[in-house]
Each structure stands twice: as structure tokens, then as C-alpha cells.
């Protein structure tokens, strides 16, 4: 995409097509291990993913059209680091980890913090993203991915919200993660919103109050999908909707 836009003129291009081992989805120690070359369609239709972190399958299912999802890979999607992509906010909200290979071994990096700027990730030359590890959602947690598409089903999000919440035995929100897509240079974790809802008993008032904080956490650009002011407002609306979804039993 970047080279087609003239933003990147690669001297060499290395094909990963024959690294078939990186296409698999496996389960280890209650984590889903997704090969970097697994297609978005594979994840969308994977029973292992559906059973453990179904919201990730849902997020992948919102990417463009089925033709694109048959070709596009999760690893490519992540390292491309377009902030309007759908899987990254959901991966961050689910607490996923990137496994990165290099000549002298492997390292792991939480996906939260992995995206550093527009189209930029915390990787060095000589490194290759090989796997994404997603912990299974616990039985007391719920997750959702909401993508606001006022134009067409295959569009980029005007704004998107990935949310995960865990409700404790008292019915209070024990833990929450809220991550927004298409709302700044990278996926944006809404820490203020999270802090405001943790410990609260879910109610319309509590959720609306917390969601209002997201306006100052996002930093969207104005474009054909809406002005800056509109996107901030939509971040609020969809954050509230996402929180309602994950806190409603």
C-alpha cells in the first residue's frame, strides 16, 4: 500500500509466501498462537479463536471485504501499523503479545506500546514478526469490537472501539481495557476511561460519564470520514456503546 502511494520505494522485497509454518493457528497454555501469515479469513473462521477470544474473530471479520481477508495476513496487518486497521485495537485490548524472530533468537513484546507512530512499530531491521499470542478470555470477561461505518461495509472505520471488561462477584467492573482505532497516529488505549469504570457498578450514568473522557484521549485527523470534532464525538458514542456491550450480562 505504501509503495503504491509512493511513500515507500523498497530496493528489495522478500517474499514470505513459502513460510507455510507461519500460517497456523494453535492453542498453547490457554493462549491462542496465531502465525503471522495466518490470513484474516482464517482467524475469522477459526473455531480455536472463536472459542477463546471470539471478539478477535469479529474484529478480523470487519476488515474490508472477504476477498481482501483471504489475502491479508494478521502479521502484515499488524506491522503495517495503519491506525485505522481493525485487529490491532482488539489485540491490544485482549492483552496480546508479539513474538519477533531475529538471527540470534526470539523476543516477545506486548502489543500495547508496540505501535509507536503512523505506520511505525517497535521493531528493528533484521527482525521478523512470526506470531501473535492472545490469552484466552476468562469466563468472567466479555470483549467486543465495534466499528463505526457510516458509509460502506468495506470502508475504514470512522472510529472503532475494542473493549474488554471483567465483572467481579459483586457485579462491579474489576478490570477494563478500551482501545480505539482510527482515532490518532496509533491505536489509542483510553486509560482515563478505564480508570473511571474500574470499580464501578455498570450503569448508564457511570458508562456515559467514563466514555465522555475519551474525547480528550483521542487525537483524530479530519478527512472524508468526518471532521476532528465529529470523530471525537463518535469516539465518545462508540466507547459508551462498547462499554455497555461488555458489561451487560
Amino acid at each position, binding site marked *: 500500500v505504501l509503495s503504491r502511494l509512493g511513500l515507500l520505494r523498497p530496493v528489495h522485497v522478500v517474499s514470505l509466501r513459502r513460510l507455510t509454518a507461519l500460517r497456523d493457528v494453535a492453542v498453547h497454555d490457554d493462549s491462542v498462537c496465531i502465525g503471522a501469515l495466518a490470513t484474516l479469513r482464517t482467524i475469522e473462521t477459526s473455531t480455536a479463536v472463536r472459542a477463546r477470544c471470539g471478539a478477535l474473530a469479529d474484529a478480523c471479520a470487519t476488515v474490508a*471485504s472477504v476477498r481482501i481477508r483471504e489475502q491479508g495476513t494478521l502479521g502484515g496487518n499488524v506491522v503495517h501499523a495503519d491506525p485505522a486497521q481493525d485487529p490491532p485495537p482488539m489485540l491490544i485490548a485482549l492483552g496480546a503479545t508479539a513474538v519477533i524472530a531475529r538471527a540470534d533468537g526470539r523476543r516477545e513484546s506486548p502489543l500495547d506500546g508496540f505501535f509507536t507512530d503512523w505506520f511505525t512499530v517497535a521493531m528493528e531491521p533484521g527482525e521478523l514478526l512470526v506470531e501473535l499470542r492472545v490469552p484466552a478470555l476468562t469466563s468472567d470477561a466479555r470483549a467486543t469490537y465495534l466499528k463505526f461505518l*457510516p458509509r460502506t461495509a*468495506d470502508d475504514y472505520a470512522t472510529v472503532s472501539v475494542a473493549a474488554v471488561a471483567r465483572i467481579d462477584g459483586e457485579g462491579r467492573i474489576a478490570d477494563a481495557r478500551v482501545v480505539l482505532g482510527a482515532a490518532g497516529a496509533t491505536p489509542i488505549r483510553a486509560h482515563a476511561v478505564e480508570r473511571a469504570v474500574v470499580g464501578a457498578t455498570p450503569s448508564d450514568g457511570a458508562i456515559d460519564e467514563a466514555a465522555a473522557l475519551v474525547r480528550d484521549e483521542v487525537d483524530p485527523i479530519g478527512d472524508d470520514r468526518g471532521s476532528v470534532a*465529529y470523530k471525537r464525538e463518535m469516539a465518545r458514542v462508540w466507547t459508551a456503546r462498547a462499554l455497555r456491550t461488555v458489561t451487560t450480562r
Partner: protein
Amino acid sequence: MTIEADRVVAGTLVEPEYRIDGRAKVTGTARYTADNRPEGTLEVAYARSPHPHARILSVDTTEAEAMPGVHRVLTGADVRSLHLGRMLQDWPLLAWERVRLVGDRVAAVAAETLAQATAAADRIEVEYEELPAIFEPAAALAGGAPILHPEHDTYRYLRGRRPDRRHANVQGERVHEHGDIEAAWAAAAHVFEHSFDVARTYQGHLEPHVTLVWMEGERFHVCSTNKSPFRLRSQLSTSLGIAADSIVVEAGVIGGDFGGKGFSIDEYVLIVLARETGRPVRFSTPYADDMRAGNCRHRATISMRTGVDTEGRILVHAASFVYDGGAYAAAKGNADLMPGGGVTSLVGYDVPAARVEGMCVYTNSIPGGHARAPGQPQASFASESHIDLIARAMAIDPIEFRLRNAIRDGGTDSRGSRWRESTMVEVLETLRREAGAARSLRPGRGRGFALGARASPAGRGGEALQGTVAVSVLRDASVEVLTGVSDQGAGAHTMMQRVVAERLGVPVTMVTVRHGATDDAPFDLGVGGSRTTPVIGGAALAGAELLARRLEEIAPDVPVLRQLARAAALGDVRVIGAFEHVAGLHSTYGYAVDVEVDVETGQVRVADAVFVADVGTVINPVALRGQILGGFAAGLGQALMEELTVHDGVVTSAGLGDYKMPTAVDVPPLRIVLLSNPGGGPFGARSAGELANVSVAPAIANAVEDAVGVRVDSLPITAEKVLDALRARGRHRQPDRGQDVAL
């Protein structure tokens, strides 16, 4: 979706058609223009302007000419006296002295490969002096505005003397008046005034404009995606000073049109390159360039004022249309240099007195051209929104208001034309019945109506209404129709096949349709103005009639298959089918659209829609369905999302990733109800191509107001605009729905 036809013709026409071009397209063997690449073909790339308006101080091609693979670099200086255009030739083949839009072609490179041509084009050094640019029509007419075409007096106008204009920055204008206007204003009980804005949109043909030119001896062979090959030949001949019979234009399989394929830009400069290099030369327009420097649908600002009596009957109407024509008028084919239906105010209503004026203005942006029903969606959005606002203000049911004013037989429309027959009332009655019967509105939903009509086909006489085909019996006793009409995907060739088979009483498999180049086929004006089925279909029917008579002479009183066998043995049985369609008929239609509005986001979702149209006898039932559904989808796009956004002359949505058009899953179910009052085409067919896209937007705007009480008066009706309107009214929550519109 159901198709209900009141009247069908027995025989071939009741069967769903088998597309003549279907197998080749599905199997990938159909040859589009871009599939032709003769040995030795050179590829072409352009150096384009980065400025919306600038003087060219110098062009240095030295480095580019020395690049590998480069055969020729052409600049404006090489072709400086030459301009192109369909009616007004105001677009230089290559810019010289000045550029007038971002993406204007400054120099052309022909090289062995596209990569070489592109690399060389990148090395052309152009020195510019930026000039003040005009982005708004109002600014173009203001005192002290820069004149974008100081040399406008020297431009060739292809139809006699170019009409006078009030300002040098005006491309064309038109004023119409009829009736006793002053008396009517004085008599009006109420006067309503509203104004509207419509965004620029892109036609959206998936195949870009492609051209291949080579020389055969002294003749230029032009392979083009242009859907009007004979007109292109004449435009090329006039512009370049080459005799028409030295140019052969061939339009092969065309990959979508939607109005954009009647205009050519690159054929001209490619002819020069082919002559100078002696090699075939080819150009395939990059999609982004097609969108930013092609020929978009005109942006418009429209104001309307209407006086009615106490019962809501229209007495008098005034309208002003201002179109943003962009940098060149070249893409428009009409004598008045306005988008075709540019001043079609209040179509379908009786307007006893009116003054309607329209103007198309130069700006430093994308040249306006033809897009499916040029001018009509703009006019319809304004007209049908205006009508709805008046009905609402007078508390008259929207269908009832339209019924009171619908044009009837002998009525006068806003252009002063008398309708000899009108099916507008029947459309309205049907719409009321169908919309009411099918659905009851849930709270939070709203319903909007919009009517429309167009001349069937366009044209008040002359070439547009005349068609000619040649019909022959081949050696194998089959029948061949030879036509100059290229099939741009709408099914023209299948239509001709069915008409001829129906008339002769033979299976469709015995009739083939051959598309000929301009040196082979009979003259034809080209696909456009919804003329193909009524006019060319009429010619095919006339040809079949003549052939039937001829066969009866050759072998009287025997079955047609034996007649054909006899004719084949005889050899050289060929007739010319010529037809002239009557002027002044109309195809009428209307929409009822239900929407749901998300009051927290402003998002509008079309929940349901019904389309009623009088298209006369149906020749290609499957293609008709495609035309109507495709038109609905196009209308939906224009209504809710499509806009070629331009900032400081730069198109910021020049790609289908940002410029979104509805996909299959975005188009809600559409119910189609067809009336079948016979028209003037073959077996009573009427025009159908440019109906379904026109009135979707006003129906949606009207439905939005019905649902949540706010009016959006500009297209597209984005979620943000709806939310802004809701906020402006201080209404954040779903309002209690009052009484549903009585139906």
C-alpha cells in the same frame, strides 16, 4: 424484488435474456481495449501539473529525452494550436503557457515500457509561476477575478457561433421563461424559497479510459474506450485537421461507462505520438488521474422559489442553477455547454409560468462532464426537496401535494414544453398503493418520496433520435446485425438480437450482432441520452421488417428458416434498417424510501425502498433489472457518501479507498414495480437507462426529515451533517413520532 409487468409481448421477449457478451466476459476472453497490445507498442506517461493555476515559464525535456527506452517527448510547444473537446474545444492537447488544474497534462512521453515512460516523465523539469486560482463559481464571477481562458475567443465551437456569455469565466448559460410570470407571482398565496448544494461525484466505471493508436499506411487506427466512436472520429478530425476518412475509431468491449466514456482526452495526443514515432502507442489512465483530471459530475448550487395558491397548486416557479464546470468545458457535448439536464427544474409537475436560469462556470478544478443523466440528479435533489418542504409547510400529504401538481396530458413543464401524454399520475397512484400496502412505519423510521421523468429518449430531433443498422443473411443462413453502437455493458447488442429474432420469428441463436468500427458500420451517434433501446432498437426492428419483406419476395409462403436458407444460397441479402424516433415522449418514475436514523451518530440507514417506473415494453428483463438496481445503488452513493473532495485544487479522495461507493451489502432490498404504457421504441419500449439513479437522494432527504425532523439541503447527506442538523435543533434524543404520514 419482484418485477410486475402489466403487459408483455408474446414470444422471445417474455424469456429472460441470455447475454450475447456474457460467456466471453465470464470466461475472461472478452477483449477490452487494454487487452490489445500489438508488437512494438510504446507506452505513454504524462508530466502533470502540481498547481491548480500557474503560468508555465519553461519546460526542459533534455534529461527525459536521454532516458533509456524513450522515443519521443511532446510538450505543449509541439502541439500549441491544438485543442480538444466535444462541443467547445478549449482543452489544449498539452498545456502550454498555463495550467488550469492539478493534474493538467503538461508533457507526454512515449517509451518502450510504462516504467521507462513514467521515469522519464518524472525527469521533465517544468518551471511554474503560480497564479491566483478560482475554486468557487461565485469567485469566478467576482470583480477582478482572473480570467482562466484569456484566449477564449479563439476556441473552436463545433456548432456554428458560440452563444454569448455574461462573463469570460462562464462556459455556457441558459435562460428560459414562459407564462405570465409577474401576474402569477402577484396571484400566489404563498411563496417558498430554498437553496441546495450538490457535491462533485465520479462515474465509477471500473475500466479507466484507455487508448491505443497506430498507423496503417496513412490511416490512423484508434482503439478506444469511447462509447461514441463516430463522434470521436469527428472531434479528432476537427481538432487535428485530419480528414475523417483517415481515422478509424474502434470501440471494443467497454468496461462500464455511467456517462464518463463519451469523452476522450488522450486519443488526440496519441495520434500525434503515433505519427511521430511510427509505432503503436498506448495509454491506460491511472485510476487516480481519471478521478482527479477526468470529467466528473458537476458540483452545483441551486436555488428555487415557487408560488402556490391556497390549495397548494403551483402557479409560478423561479430557479437558478450554478454549475461548477471546472477548468475546461471540453467534456460537455451539449450546444449550451451545460450538463445535459441542467435546468430541468420541477420535472413531472405542471408549471404554468416559470423563469429558470442556469450557468456553468470555469474554476481551477476537475472539468465537469457527463455522468449518468447529466444534471438531473442535481436538479432532482433540489426540486423534490423543495416540493417536499412546500408540502410540509402547507401541511399537505406529500403524495397528495404531488398529485395536485403532477403534469397531465397537455400540461406545461418548467421549460415550457407541452407534454402530449403523461403517466405521472399513474406513477404516483401506483407509488402510493405500493408504498402503503407493503409496509407500516415503525417509530424512528421515516418515509420520503421523490418523482422524476426524462425525455424518452433525450433529444428534440436530429441525429440523437435517428438510428441505423445493417441486417444481412450470412452464408450459414443465420442473420447478422451490423452496428456502430458499442455495448458498454448495458446490453445493447443483446437487445438488438432479441428485437430482430422476435420480429423474424427465429431463435435468438440465429441472430448475431457484430460491432463495426467507423469504416465498417453504419453511422451512429453513440450510446447516451437513454437512446439505445428506443432508437437503435427501432432501427433493428426496421431492419428486421425490411428483411422479412425481402425474404417474402425471395421465397413466398414458406417458413422463415427455409426463406433464410434460400436467401443464404442466393447470397448478398442485406438491408439497412433506419429509424427516427418521435420526440416529446417521457419515461416517468418515482421512489418511496424508508430510512432509520441513528440520532446519536447521524447515520442514515435505508431500510426499504420501492421504485415505480413506466418503461414501456421490456426487451431485456434481466438487464433492465440490472439497470434499475445499479441506478439505485448509484443514487444511494450520491445521496449518502460520494464526494470528490477538493482542497485548494487538490482532489483528496482520488481513489476508491477514500471515495466510497456502495457495495452489494450496502444496498438494501429494492422492490421494482413496472408500468408498461407503450412508448416509441421497438414493440413500445421506452428509455430506462437514466431513471433509477436520479431521485434517490431527495427521497432519502425527505425521509430523514420525516424520521427525525431535520432537513439536510446538501449532498451527500453524511452522518456528520445529519448529526449537526440534529444538534442545531437541540434534539439529541429520538423524538416522539407524531402521526405517520397518512397513505
